[in-house]
């Protein structure tokens, strides 16, 4: 096993196997993961991030294959993270996004990594971001993150990008479904794929109707592109649309504001996670919690007041001995 610094140096100069190994280490929350991210993060931030989400079967993987080829043909270096669900029963996963990827040109510079959404070790949102940042740091200038847009985690992953693309098919149902899924607010670009099928016009009209009712005066109004990815139709316009959105963001540094908002959310969530790990664990394992649980179940006290009592009591103690080693360890990492 090579030393981690060697692996990082090689990865930064483009060694695929090393990049791959680093992604694996952060994915499973290896103890070296914090060190890896600390070394690599300063090199990231140069790439443009695109999130592609939509229901299963919308044609995302096929579209990603086409996009990668177009970006590479124009001299870009592309990183793809494709997230697929994992089995809640076995923890295993069948990651099938690569099936649609058929890139034969050796001069195309791309890196495709499949990730299972059930990797709860790190939390999907964090591990996907870290993997994407590794690819960013190691030289890719376009990062595509592909997820199935069901479930909050997957949606969060898609939202943490510069351009969010929501893909629909003619069978996506009426507009109400789209609104319910929360995708209207999230999308920067809509793509109605498989538009060789009947119903494509209907969904495009329904979407347009909904978007027309929103006041986009000073901001970006999401365009709707009709495509048939498997038939290579409409992809040029969609591709141009991606660049147009990037131009829009680069104007007035809107992209910096957007990223700042995202990082703020991320920092908050990370702090909450660290907090949970250290402090809440101590509370949940303690006596007070068990007693309170009993009291609430027996209707002697309501949950809100019980919680207040626990927290007040905990705060009035000195930092418990159990926490001190954790705090010290944090300082060394």
């Amino acid at each position, binding site marked *: 096993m090579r030393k981690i610094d060697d692996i990082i140096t090689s990865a930064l100069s483009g060694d*695929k196997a090393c990049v791959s190994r680093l992604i694996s280490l952060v994915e499973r929350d290896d103890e070296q993961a914090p060190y890896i991210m600390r070394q690599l993060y300063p090199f990231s931030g140069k790439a443009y991030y695109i999130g592609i989400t939509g229901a299963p079967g919308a044609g995302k993987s096929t579209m990603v294959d086409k996009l990668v080829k177009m970006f590479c043909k124009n001299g870009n270096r592309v990183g793809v993270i494709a997230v697929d669900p994992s*089995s809640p029963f*076995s923890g*295993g996963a*069948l*990651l099938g996004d*690569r*099936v649609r990827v058929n890139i034969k040109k050796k001069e195309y510079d791309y890196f495709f990594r*499949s990730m299972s959404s059930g990797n709860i*070790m790190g939390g999907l949102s964090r591990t996907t971001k870290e993997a994407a940042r590794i690819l960013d740091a190691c030289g890719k200038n376009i990062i595509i993150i592909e997820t199935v847009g069901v479930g909050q985690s997957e949606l969060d992953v898609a939202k943490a990008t510069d351009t969010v693309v929501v893909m629909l098919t003619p069978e996506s149902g009426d507009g109400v479904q789209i609104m319910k899924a929360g995708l209207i607010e999230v999308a920067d670009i809509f793509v109605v794929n498989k538009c060789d099928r009947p119903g494509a016009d209907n969904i495009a009209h329904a979407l347009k109707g909904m978007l027309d009712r929103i006041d986009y005066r000073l901001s970006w109004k999401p365009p709707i592109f009709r495509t048939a990815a498997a038939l290579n139709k409409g992809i040029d316009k969609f591709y141009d649309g991606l660049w147009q959105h990037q131009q829009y963001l680069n104007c007035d540094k809107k992209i910096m504001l957007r990223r700042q908002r995202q990082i703020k959310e991320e920092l908050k969530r990370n702090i909450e996670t660290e907090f949970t790990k250290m402090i809440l664990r101590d509370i949940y394992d303690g006596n007070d919690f068990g007693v309170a649980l009993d009291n609430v179940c027996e209707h002697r006290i309501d949950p809100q007041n019980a919680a207040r009592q626990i927290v007040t009591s905990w705060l009035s103690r000195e930092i418990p001995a159990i926490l001190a080693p954790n705090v010290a360890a944090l300082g060394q990492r």
Partner: protein
Amino acid sequence: MDRKIRVVMAKLGLDIHWRGVYLVSQFLKDSGMEVVYLGNKFPEQIVDAAIEEDADVIGLSSLGGAHMTLGPKVVKLLKEKGLNHIKVFMGGVMAPKDAHCLEQEHGIEKVYLPDTPMQAIIDGIRSKVALA
């Protein structure tokens, strides 16, 4: 939590028989492994995918006769790139003596012929993979 074994499964060359590789992929998933399914791919693409996905195992399916030419090519490419930790397994339809030859002379860990119980495949893979 135990680290999951990552397997890259592919159909060798142009052979489109899919049930075998599909079933094995499902069973491996159910046994807790992460399976990246490639569909039909050629050796260079398979090895590239194995690198990007940090695979521990490559599983190749061949029912169309390409096993003696394309199978060993995968092993050869792995050796050239210094990826000796990735184990290659094959499954499908071929003469037992070909299977034997692939195992003995061409670096294939194990060839699983028809009627091999699924559990044997799962156990076989687990036993050969040294988790780093």
